[in-house]
Structures are given as C-alpha cells and as structure tokens.
C-alpha cells in the first residue's frame, strides 16, 4: 500500500501488514512515521493512493460512504484526546452511539451505558460534563463509548500519552481484559515501549514508511537491526537522526548578520 499527503511527501511506500483477528497488535514507531495516518487509513478516513486495505475482509478503496459507515459500526476507536462531545454529559456521550443507531428502550440504554461505565470504573461520574473530567478520566469515558456498540475491532490512538501511572495501569488492564473477554481485535498505536510490551501480542515497528520489524515484544528486544535497537533502547541518535535536517551548525552560528 502506498500513501502520500496530498500527492506530495510520501508517508508510506510499499507498506505491507496483516493484523490478526482476536489479538492485540501494537503499531510502534518514532514520532512522525505516520502511525496515526495508518489508523486513518485503516478506518477509511483517508484513502490509499495505490494498493489495497482490507478490513474484516472488505476492501476499503472505492468503498461508498454508506458501506463505510456500516463497516465502522463494527469498529470502535479511542482518540488521543478522548474526543468526547463537549455538549453532552458523560452518560449521554456513552449513550450517543446507541441513540443514533438503535431504537432500544430507554431502560436498556441506561443499563448498557451503566455497565460500560462500570467497566471503566466511572459509573459514579455519569452525570458530569466532559469539562469536569481529568485527561485520564475522559479517555476512560471515551473507551466506554468505543465499546458500547460491542465492536469487533477496537483501535487505540496513543492511549497512554499524558496519563499518570495509575490511569495508565487501568487502561492497560482494560485493553487486555476487553480483548480476552470479548474476543475483540485490538490495534494499539503507541510509542511507549515499556507499556506496550506488557500488553501486546504482536508488535509492528514502523520507520521511514515501512515495517522495519515485526514480532512479539520479547523478540523485538533482541532484534538484529539498528533502528529497532535505537527505538527500543531509547537512544538519542542512530539511524533515526536526532537532528531535523539543517545546514551546518557552526557555519550558521558564525554567519555574519547580513548572511543570516
């Protein structure tokens, strides 16, 4: 699969991945490798320039909006920011997909929403507004909302960013539990090596628009590649340069004012 931003800078060239049903797949890579873009491709928010993307056996390229929306009902996505609807309470946020897609009686909606909120430990916050929640709490509410329609595929975009250790542990356990209990296929995009290693079954490491490594977290620890070693070991410089491309440092510092 190939993808370039507005036909300009290529983000992916010849990317080839297969994500297995019922397992937790982590997609890792340095910032700017297009991990979030990859999620947008998988969910059909943007389309590949060439090649093919299949989700649950269905080809996304050239898919009509209506068909895409039917497919998306089988997916849940947790956004980096939580992306809760700010004009609705926590309860209504979680109830939102149910109200939009089903004609369930109010009693049943209430039960479903409370069950999901209980699962993320926030049943007591049902009547709060999103503005009253902390970052970790909004992400847990967003997770409850993502699972309220019982999706087959659950996608997490950077679920660990900016969380305190307690919230982080809660989210990690939830990812594992949801996957095992409901048989969901989970895709987690992250660059937190430690956290993801404890939960993922398979890890794909992306760099330069390609998959540079795949395997279990343990296999990645001893992967014979400089890029992988740099990333897993958290080294500042290596095949992924620390510096953004720039002219010569001393030359620029010592340049006379009129040259600058």
């Amino acid at each position: 699969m190939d993808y370039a931003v507005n036909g300009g800078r290529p983000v992916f060239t010849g990317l080839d991945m297969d994500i297995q049903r019922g397992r937790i797949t982590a997609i890792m890579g340095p910032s700017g490798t297009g991990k979030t873009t990859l999620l947008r491709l998988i969910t059909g928010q943007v389309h590949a320039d060439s090649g093919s993307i299949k989700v649950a056996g269905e080809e996304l390229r050239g898919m009509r909006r209506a068909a895409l929306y039917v497919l998306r009902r089988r997916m849940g996505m947790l956004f980096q920011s939580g992306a809760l609807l700010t004009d609705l309470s926590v309860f209504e946020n979680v109830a939102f997909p149910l109200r939009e897609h089903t004609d369930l009686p109010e009693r049943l909606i209430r039960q479903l929403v409370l069950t999901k909120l209980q699962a993320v430990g926030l049943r007591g916050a049902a009547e709060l507004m999103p503005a009253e929640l902390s970052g970790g709490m909004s992400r847990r509410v967003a997770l409850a909302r993502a699972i309220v329609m019982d999706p087959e595929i659950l996608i997490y975009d950077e679920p660990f960013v900016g969380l305190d250790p307690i919230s982080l542990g809660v989210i990690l356990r939830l990812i594992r539990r949801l996957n095992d209990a409901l048989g969901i296929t989970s895709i987690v995009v992250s660059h937190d090596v430690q956290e993801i290693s404890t939960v993922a079954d398979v890890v794909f490491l992306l760099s330069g628009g390609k998959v540079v490594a795949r395997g279990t977290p343990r296999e990645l620890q001893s992967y014979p590649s400089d890029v992988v070693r740099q990333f897993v070991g958290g080294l500042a410089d290596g095949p992924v340069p620390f510096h953004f491309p720039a002219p010569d440092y001393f030359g620029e510092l010592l340049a006379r004012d009129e040259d600058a």
Partner: protein
Amino acid sequence: MKLIEELWESLRDALVGLGAVARFLLRLLAAAPRALLRLDLISQQIYNAGALSLVIIMLSGLFVGMVLGLQGFQLLQRFGSEEALGTAAAIGLVKELGPVVTALLFAGRAGTALASELGLMRATDQISAMEMMAVDPIRRVVVPRFLGGVIAMPLLAAIFSVIGIYGAQLVGVQIMGVDGGSFWSQMRAAVGLRDINEGIVKSCIFGVTCSLIAVYQGYYAEPTAEGVGRATTRTVVTSAVFILFLDYLVTAAFL
C-alpha cells in the same frame, strides 16, 4: 500584466470558494429531510441561535426605532407632515432596517458562535469521532444548526421591526408630540402586504446566507486555535458583505 494575472487568480479563487459553498449547501439540503426527524435537535438550535439573540435584537430594535423617530420627526417637520412619521418608520424598519440590522447582529452573535463551536469540534476530534461512530456529522451537527439559524432569523427580524416601531412611537408620539391616532392610522393605510413580504423575503434570504456561511466556515476551519479564530472573523466579514449585496439585489427585484 502581473496585476491582471493576480486579479484573475483571486477571481478564480473566489469562484472556486463559491462553488464549494454551493456544493456544501446541496449536501446540507440532501441531509435535511432525515435531520428534520430530529425536532429536538433543531429546537435546541433555534433556542441557541434565536432565543439567546433576543436581548441584543430587542435592544437594538428599540434604539434604531427611537433614532428613526427623532430623525424622521425632524425631517418631516420641515414639510409639515409629522403625521407620516408612523409610515416612514414602519416602511424603513419592515423593508430595510429590520432584516439588514438583524442579519448583521445575527452574524455577529449567532454566526460567530456557530462557526467557533463547529471549528472547535473539528479541532478537538469530535467531528472525526462522530464519523468513526458511523454518525454523519453533517446530519447530526451541521444541518440542525443550519436549520435553527434559518428558522430563527426571520422571527428575530420580525421582532426587531415591531420593537423598532414602538421605539419610533415612543419618541415621536410620547416625546415629540406627534398625534398618536394619525401615527398608527397612516401607518396602517400606507404599509401594504408587499412591503411586509419584501421584509420577509429578505430576512429569509439573509437567514440562509448567514447560517450557511457560519456552518461552512466552522466545519472547514483549520483545526488550530488560529484557524478557529480566522473562521470566526471570516464568518462576520463575509456575512456582512453578502447581506448588503443581496439586500441591494432583493430591493431592486421588488421595485
């Protein structure tokens, strides 16, 4: 040569923009029938765009009417026909000032609120989240806001005109001493259905224009703080220009 090229460029950009807005309007209209089933969402937006603009509209209407009363009285007094003050104020308000000033205020109050709300929803991923939940944001978020504005605007213009006429009466009759009977009776005799229709047509057109510009700017705002700010500014500026331009066209059409 360069000037002509630049002029051509900006003309082309303007046309492309106009085309994009027209396509957006078609999308809204296509989604409208299903959105109309959700009356709760639309009435919420009528409240947001209409009821919350009431105070500013009523106050402005009162002051505009009072100024009309003063100015009109002074002018008409020169010709010894102060009794025509009611007619002058009513015609001026119903046909012109009511729809135009209401639309300008509406763009400043409700239009900016719509644009910044939608822009922030885009910036905080709420629009994407809806798309991911297989909920069409156009149908769920944009159309109710658009329809709310379209419905609220003519009502606000009508209220503006009524309050304005009472403002003119307050100054003309109560303060300047014009005869109350002739103020009202001359107005009733001179203001026809055609004048009222002109006001209604104008306020409906302005309602569509302002709401469309606001939701378009908000929905396609760049998802940054700067982008949302720009979208809000553009909403007011573009709305104001279009209101005055369309006002001329409709006035000419009604002659």
